[in-house]
């Protein structure tokens, strides 16, 4: 009856339609977070593992892959924020007059601060991108990989980026709020997409908590380990002995191409 364009408008303008946009984009973002966390954890496998991974991301599909992912994520984030802000404003208008005696029966604290946790996450995402992707700090921007000087040293940059007390503290707060957002958000996806029922309610809640806890530990372990020096930047350390050790270790992780380079590097160290 309606043209597809009109149907799309009706869908976007309906309460349920916008909620479905929130859930689908939220699901995409959660998927990204899990992948991003797994990739980041390569930090614990050493400099070469992390830097190889970063190089791989930048060369996916001849360099196009990372842009496809970036644009896709940006569109998802923009749609998520636009629809949630519009829904939140609409919800406030629907309950203009507050109760003199307010009471809450079972809504969780996390579910009641979604807009605030969301906006802080947004501020964090912008900071995080300027910090590690755009690298507005020249000190972090000019870090060649000591084992392979042609490429950026993501490993060293991450460890250096978390040196001060403020950055790790901000990460701690923001990621904790992200997890608060997700403790309600992940379970919510199922309800919004019509996949939750009394029978599955328990397992959905458990899954939601499990994924949230995993993300909290997986993301925070990096700034915390860096700040408390549980992982140290051996590549930039002064003693040749340690450096030699690192290089010898790291050959195990390096693809063939790097191995030659590592060998050369090892030679340099021996000198």
């Amino acid at each position: 009856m309606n043209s597809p364009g009109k149907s799309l408008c009706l869908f976007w303008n309906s309460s349920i339609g916008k909620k479905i946009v929130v859930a689908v984009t939220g699901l995409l973002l959660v998927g990204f977070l899990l992948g991003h966390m797994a990739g980041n954890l390569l930090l614990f496998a050493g400099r070469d593992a992390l830097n190889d991974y970063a190089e791989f991301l930048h060369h996916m599909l001849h360099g196009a892959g990372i842009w496809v992912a970036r644009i896709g994520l940006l569109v998802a984030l923009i749609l998520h924020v636009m629809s949630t802000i519009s829904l939140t404003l609409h919800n406030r208008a629907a309950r203009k007059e507050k109760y003199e005696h307010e009471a809450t029966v079972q809504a969780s604290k996390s579910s009641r601060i979604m807009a605030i946790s969301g906006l802080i996450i947004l501020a964090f995402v912008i900071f995080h991108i300027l910090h590690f992707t755009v690298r507005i700090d020249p000190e972090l921007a000019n870090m060649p990989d000591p084992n392979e000087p042609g490429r950026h040293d993501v490993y060293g940059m991450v460890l250096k980026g978390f040196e001060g007390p403020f950055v790790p503290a901000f990460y701690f707060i923001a990621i904790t709020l992200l997890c608060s957002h997700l403790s309600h958000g992940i379970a919510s996806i199922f309800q919004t997409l019509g996949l939750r029922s009394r029978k599955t309610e328990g397992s959905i809640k458990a899954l939601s908590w499990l994924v949230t806890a995993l993300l909290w530990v997986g993301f925070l372990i990096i700034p915390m380990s860096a700040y408390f020096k549980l992982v140290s930047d051996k590549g930039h350390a002064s003693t040749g002995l340690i450096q030699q050790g690192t290089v010898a270790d790291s050959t195990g992780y390096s693809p063939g191409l790097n191995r030659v380079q590592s060998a050369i590097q090892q030679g340099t160290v021996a000198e």
Partner: protein
Amino acid sequence: MNLTLKVWRQAHADDRGSISTYEAKDIPEEASFLEMLDIVNEQILEGDSGEEPIHFDHDCREGICGMCSLNINGVPHSKEQGITTCQVHMRKFRDGDTIWIEPFRAKAFPVVKDLITDRTAFDRIIAAGGFIDVRTGSAVDANSLPIPKEEADSSFDAAACIGCGACVAACKNASAMLFVGAKAAHLNLLPQGEPEKDRRVLSMVRQMDAEGFGNCTNQYECEAVCPKEISADVIAKLNRDYAKAAVKEAVAT
């Protein structure tokens, strides 16, 4: 028992309204909540303040009509589960308690006077699609149209909704999803309602949005206060049925 009541008084729809305090004296424990208000109203009428009695909605006083409302200490139909305001008894309170009594609040439920709200937005949602277009002749034989037990039960559970509006009153966003979900599921689950399922869901949801109800944020406050214990499963079903109907509308019909 003696109680202190904090009651919302509002002379008419455009009045700002405020909380007034009343001392409810010598309330028998066996009185119902609405009988307690009747006693307080008698006391107001007998006094010489010239004040109008407290206006509130009620009809059947046995939990089936959906007319009584009231937010009692912040919770629609009180914190007792699975009952309407008319089924609340004073024995659930203690001597000396202070009780807050307010109208159901939502932009789509404007206050008419004191504790009475205009809930006709629900009627307009029903008029938009909460029916089936068939001739209503004499009832057909019960077994001429087989319906699986599980579906009949789910439909019956949804049909228990009495349209009181407590779900809207409890929701932080004044969303009517539990009511609309129940009314749509009740018909969508049955063979008689199935042919008009898509049209019904689209029309009812659009009317719900037009009335100014909020959006569901999956906090399940509605489910917790519903006097008929309608499950939030009907909301998941409404989301699912709406998504399917919207896609079909865009590409098929």
